């Protein structure tokens, strides 16, 4: 009996063995093992995108609830929180300032890669600093051949991704050199300032509103205000109205309560600059410029929101980030006012300011804004493509 059981053992081993050997001898397929693709973009707060194969996530999280071999959109959506928690728990980022508060900046999407469907997670990294330590641990515990392909988007593009493996899963990369480490709310504040200064259309709109603030209408012509006080109160009213309006729509849009098509927003903002500028030449709204500021501020808020969406708003810190960004916008705005107002106030009595600067600059603003309006509404590029 002993001899016979030995023979049986060999047989069963060989039957399995045949499977092993055939695979070796006859196939050398170009294979597609498991990869995830992680793109990290530096910035005041940093953003990113992480694409992970649904096949891989199903293997560890059992997304295919009914076991029929197809992960449906409904099954995936039902497990969205688990997917996010699983992924974020396996990626640790730090800068010299400390650990990054990694979060998703929106709901996951589904995207196609060469070997099938992936979940795509939009990330808010919540950190800044000169160097970024990456510790990548996704899936290695269940798949030793998994690879993390990390692309650091340094703005130059085309960089080869960093390859992270089970044995080599940590890397330090240079990261937005020169940006001092900040807390994330502070980072959003600076992002807000940067945006109002960098977004030419907002600056021009403010300028159009500010130009006549040191003047008043007198018999169909501009005349200097007698003192600083009325000019200041006009400015305060105008800027406050603009702020309240754009804060309102910015918040609603950033919280996904309402959404507006980018093309309409951009066109409407360009139109608002035209309107504000033309109003300086042929005043229609009189002392009600604060109403203009309010009405058009509603539109600008959507513009700010689209920027914020590009940066990525960390979930769980929505309110503080939003407040920070808004505060930054207001600070940037006040800085512009503080820079322009004294000059305008001192120049207000000169004929040149009233007869040349206000109508001339306003006309120039109107022309630029009309070109923007055409470009944005018709989706063509005229001459300002490089400006905006």
């Amino acid at each position, binding site marked *: 009996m002993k001899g016979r059981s030995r023979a049986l053992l*060999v047989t069963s*081993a*060989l039957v399995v*063995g*045949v499977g*092993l*050997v*055939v*695979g*070796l*001898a*006859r*196939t*050398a*397929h*170009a*294979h*597609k093992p*498991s*990869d995830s693709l992680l793109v990290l973009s530096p910035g005041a707060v940093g953003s990113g995108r992480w694409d992970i194969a*649904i*096949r891989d996530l*199903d*293997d560890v999280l*059992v997304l*295919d609830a009914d*076991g*029929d*071999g*197809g992960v*449906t*959109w*409904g099954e995936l959506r039902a497990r969205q929180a688990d997917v996010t928690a699983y992924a974020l728990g396996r990626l640790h980022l730090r800068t010299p300032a400390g650990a990054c508060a990694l979060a998703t900046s*929106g*709901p996951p*999407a*589904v995207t196609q*890669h060469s070997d099938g469907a992936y979940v795509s997670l939009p990330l808010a990294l919540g950190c800044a600093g000169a160097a970024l330590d990456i510790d990548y641990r996704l899936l*290695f515990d269940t*798949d*030793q*051949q998994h690879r993390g*392909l990390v692309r650091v988007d340094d703005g130059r593009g085309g960089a080869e991704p960093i*390859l992270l493996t089970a044995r080599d899963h940590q890397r330090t990369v240079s990261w937005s050199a020169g940006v001092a480490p900040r807390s994330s709310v502070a980072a959003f504040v600076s992002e807000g300032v940067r945006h109002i200064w960098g977004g030419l259309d907002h600056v021009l709109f403010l300028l159009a509103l500010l130009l006549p603030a040191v003047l008043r*209408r007198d018999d169909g012509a501009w005349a200097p205000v007698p003192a600083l006080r009325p000019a200041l109160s006009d400015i305060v009213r105008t800027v406050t109205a603009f702020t309240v309006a754009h804060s309102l729509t910015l918040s609603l849009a950033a919280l*996904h309560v*309402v*959404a507006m*098509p980018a093309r309409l*927003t951009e066109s409407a903002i360009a139109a608002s600059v035209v309107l504000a500028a033309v109003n300086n030449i042929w005043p*229609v*709204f009189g002392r*009600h410029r604060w*109403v*203009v500021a*309010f*009405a*058009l501020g*509603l*539109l600008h808020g959507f513009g700010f929101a689209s920027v914020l969406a590009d940066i990525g708003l960390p979930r769980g810190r929505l309110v503080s980030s939003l407040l920070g960004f808004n505060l930054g916008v207001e600070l940037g705005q006040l800085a512009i006012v503080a820079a322009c107002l004294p000059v305008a106030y001192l120049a207000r009595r000169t004929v040149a300011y009233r007869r040349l600067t206000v109508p001339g600059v306003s006309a120039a603003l109107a022309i630029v804004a009309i070109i923007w309006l055409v470009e944005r509404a018709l989706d063509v590029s005229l001459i300002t493509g490089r400006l905006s």
Partner: protein
Amino acid sequence: MTTDAHRREQRAAAGLVACALVVVAVGVATARPRAGEAQLARVIPDGEVVAQVPARGRDPAAAERARLRRALDTNPRDLATASRLARMLIAAARGGGDPRFLGRAEAALRPWWDEQSPPAEALLLRATIRQSRHEFEPALADLDRLVAAAPGDAQAWLTRAVVLGVRGRYSDGLASCARLDTLASPLVVAACRAPLLGVTGHARGAAAALAAELRFARGPGEAAWAEAALADLELWSGDAAVAEARLRRLLARAPEDGAARAALADLVLDDGRATEAAALVAARDGDDGLLLRHALARVAQGADPATDPTVQAMAARFEAARLRGDSVHQREEARFALAVARDPARALRLAEQSWRIQKEPADARVLLEAAVAARAPGAAAPVLAWLAETGCEWPRLRALAASLRGPR
């Protein structure tokens, strides 16, 4: 300022606010989710399948793998469970051509993977995974250790013979097969010898010996393995039609045998029947080996490589493999570079790299073809020497060699 003028201004201001609100309302009403954010919109119906995965509810093997994985999670050092899971995962990798399973098998064996002398079971599985990643020398070291410790392990001798054959060590491989004489059936011994004898100029005799044993096959898996080896021998002996008929019969019984299907598609492609080859592999693009044949067939049919989606899909997978640093597919990529991308210099480089690692007739062929296309006969020297030394009879190789040696 007159009251009239004041009223006019008030009306203008009110009108503007109304305008702005209308714009906002229109915008909100027509808003779509930002590009790439299909999630917010119910653009995808909940019932739509977004990805195919192993069906745990229908496929008993998938369910068993999931069960073993859970068991292993609670006790990762349980060798019996780990090796059973690894074995199933290797079988799954082979069956469906999905190499993910190999990485998972390695993960199951993680506690023993870095050991110098792991238990025999783990050693055999480690060798199997290593050779499937074309890490032939580490695999051979494992197998040598295994047969030294357990000379009665037929599987170890068999796997070792195959790896030695791929490395071009044919007499060592035959010696390894000889150890099976007392451990396995004559069919297994004949199938073990088949590729080694086939490459070294004894294809006909090896085919006769294997054919005589075919009817003693124990189970469909063993039969399919032996028949595929026999088809290779027939091809190398110059009996392409016989090999083709054999592969067709094999596929009729086992349509999911990707390796047999790839071999058949190659035969049909070589015979200039591109449309038939495309039909053989179409709708099986999940398997990279078959996707390659599909791309070759499409180009042979006259498709434009720059726009053909099958060609583009294959190129994307090669690029994905390159990004992750894989090089197990150099032979395939050389064929792609030669016949699809029409870049003979690159094809030659890839074929030369591949030849350093594995020495099967298919590797010899792509190197010779690339050397011809790149007008670099000197690069063919190692293969011509190999051909003279082994005496491999495959007419296609002989013809290529003659054209390279002939007057130019």
